[in-house]
């Protein structure tokens, strides 16, 4: 038992401390770069702050008023909530093209259960939330158990859920006045708190709380770390003891649930229950996620980034419109700005390696 190769013994007297290096002149800039490096969501935050400042300078008080700034929050509210759901799925290296459809079907269920079947609105809301979660479960089950690509699963579900929505609702809108009179609970997220000129709807507050909650869960719980691990390398995660299927199914279910909440919040925002809403939710939520710095290949990025990403688009949209650009020019400029925002992001990241 002691065929030990003799030269190996020479290593015995080696020092026992961890290596340390003189970092040289650690200037402020270098410290800042390091901070950016360890907190990637700071980058979209910087882009956001820069764009607020630029539009503020260009537009003055029209833009830089509590009213306009909180208006942006309201305008990105729904997309922000949906983008949270989308972030979770994208973190697992998936994609959810059915978010918009699930959102609108859930809101239709809330509305129709109340008005068609006469259920109490509380129960109808719960049914809507269950509906969303169930759609998410189907997505998750197909992705995790059947090993189908998320893109296809949710593309299929998008069509299925949307068609179901149109068939079930018979394309009928439930009018805002009716809801306000008979089931105001459905419009809960439309309630506002006013502070000076600033207007915060419950929907906006919900979005902010949701972002904080998810940021906590992703960072500070085991489940959160597993979400990252699954997105990073599912085989490695499986081999090192993560119940990959369970994590995937739970992520898609949670995504469905959040979309159902978004559907509820949407009733609050637009007042009525309309089966044609939410058609742009897919592309807008994915845009927010990607501008926010989450990799479409999974496992990298943070939910705070998504939040800032959604706000960046909101700021650009409102700012450009107030500057008087007309619709096609706005689209064109937003296209340019999206690319520019990500280029700045990329550049800051590169500087900060």
């Amino acid at each position: 038992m002691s065929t030990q190769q003799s030269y190996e013994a020479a290593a015995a007297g080696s020092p026992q401390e961890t290596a340390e290096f003189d970092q040289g002149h650690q200037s402020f800039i270098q410290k800042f770069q390091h901070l950016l490096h360890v907190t990637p969501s700071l980058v979209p935050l910087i882009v956001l702050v820069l764009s607020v400042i630029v539009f503020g300078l260009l537009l003055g008080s029209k833009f830089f008023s509590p009213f306009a700034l909180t208006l942006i929050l309201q305008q990105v509210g729904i997309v922000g909530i949906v983008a949270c759901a989308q972030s979770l799925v994208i973190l697992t290296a998936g994609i959810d093209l059915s978010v918009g459809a699930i959102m609108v079907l859930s809101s239709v269920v809330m509305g129709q259960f109340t008005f068609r079947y006469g259920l109490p609105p509380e129960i109808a809301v719960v049914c809507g939330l269950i509906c969303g979660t169930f759609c998410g479960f189907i997505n998750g089950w197909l992705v995790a158990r059947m090993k189908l690509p998320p893109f296809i699963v949710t593309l299929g579900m998008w069509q299925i859920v949307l068609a179901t929505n149109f068939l079930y609702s018979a394309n009928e809108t439930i009018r805002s006045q009716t809801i306000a009179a008979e089931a105001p609970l459905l419009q809960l997220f439309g309630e506002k708190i006013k502070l000076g000129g600033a207007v915060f709807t419950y929907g906006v507050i919900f979005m902010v709380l949701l972002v904080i909650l998810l940021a906590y869960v992703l960072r500070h719980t085991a489940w959160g770390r597993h979400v990252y691990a699954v997105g990073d390398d599912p085989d490695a995660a499986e081999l090192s003891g993560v119940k990959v299927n369970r994590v995937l199914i739970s992520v898609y279910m949670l995504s469905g649930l959040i979309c159902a909440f978004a559907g509820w919040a949407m009733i609050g925002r637009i007042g009525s229950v309309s089966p044609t809403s939410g058609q742009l939710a897919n592309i807008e939520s994915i845009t927010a996620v990607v501008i926010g710095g989450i990799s479409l290949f999974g496992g990298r990025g943070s939910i705070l980034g998504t939040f800032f990403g959604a706000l960046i688009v909101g700021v650009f949209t409102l700012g450009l419109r107030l500057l008087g650009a007309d619709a096609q020019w706005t689209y064109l400029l937003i296209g340019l700005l999206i690319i520019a925002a990500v280029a700045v992001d990329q550049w800051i990241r590169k500087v900060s390696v």
Partner: protein
Amino acid sequence: MEPILKARGLVKRYGRVTALDHCDFDLMPGEILAVIGDNGAGKSSLIKAISGAVIPDEGEVWLEGRKVQFTSPIDAREEGIETVYQTLAMSPALSIADNMFMGRELRKPGWRGNLLRQLDRARMEEIAREKLNELGLMTIQNINQAVETLSGGQRQGVAVARAAAFGSKVIILDEPTAALGVKESRRVLELIQDVKSRGIPIILISHNMPHVFEVADRIHVHRLGKRLCVIDPKAHSMSDAVAYMTGAAEPAAELAEA
């Protein structure tokens, strides 16, 4: 004595490639069993088949006399079988501590852990640091580094430290020292003997003959997808082992039955 882990007639084919060809396997309680063989002989495939990472096409596996059918590595882990795969199975973007505690994270004590289910990062980092120091990996400067930024050997060290820290019934190490330096390899060998002294049997795959002969109680020689023979390192020389595994010599008939 009954083997703690036993396999018979394992077959695994990948299309036209045969990785395991009716392979047998035995691990005795408390022993260090080395598995040696040429590149591509099927050693990794063998341990994947017994640890649930791949499902063999044919053949059966017994753990402590019970027939088991692992369909995932988690099944095996829940039975106390801890494996360091050759590909290391780590999440590149996550930190060292995250990786070490993946699937068995520690929570904060009190309500923050129970209620908020908050992870105890400080403790996990501290334990991770300690385990790495035990292996002599003093060049890891930042315990929060993403695993993908570690050097080849540092990465391997993390994987080995993880298995040693958590294995309870069997520990399987697939070439744990391939990328390690002289000092770090030495530490791993010491660790292996440490684990053995805790009564836990170890399967060690290695191409390093001096190391194999230093620590192994028995040596399973793998060739062309099957167990060629099992030899006693005290009764055979390294040259014998090498000759058998490369096919330069045939083992005596009675060895093949060992």
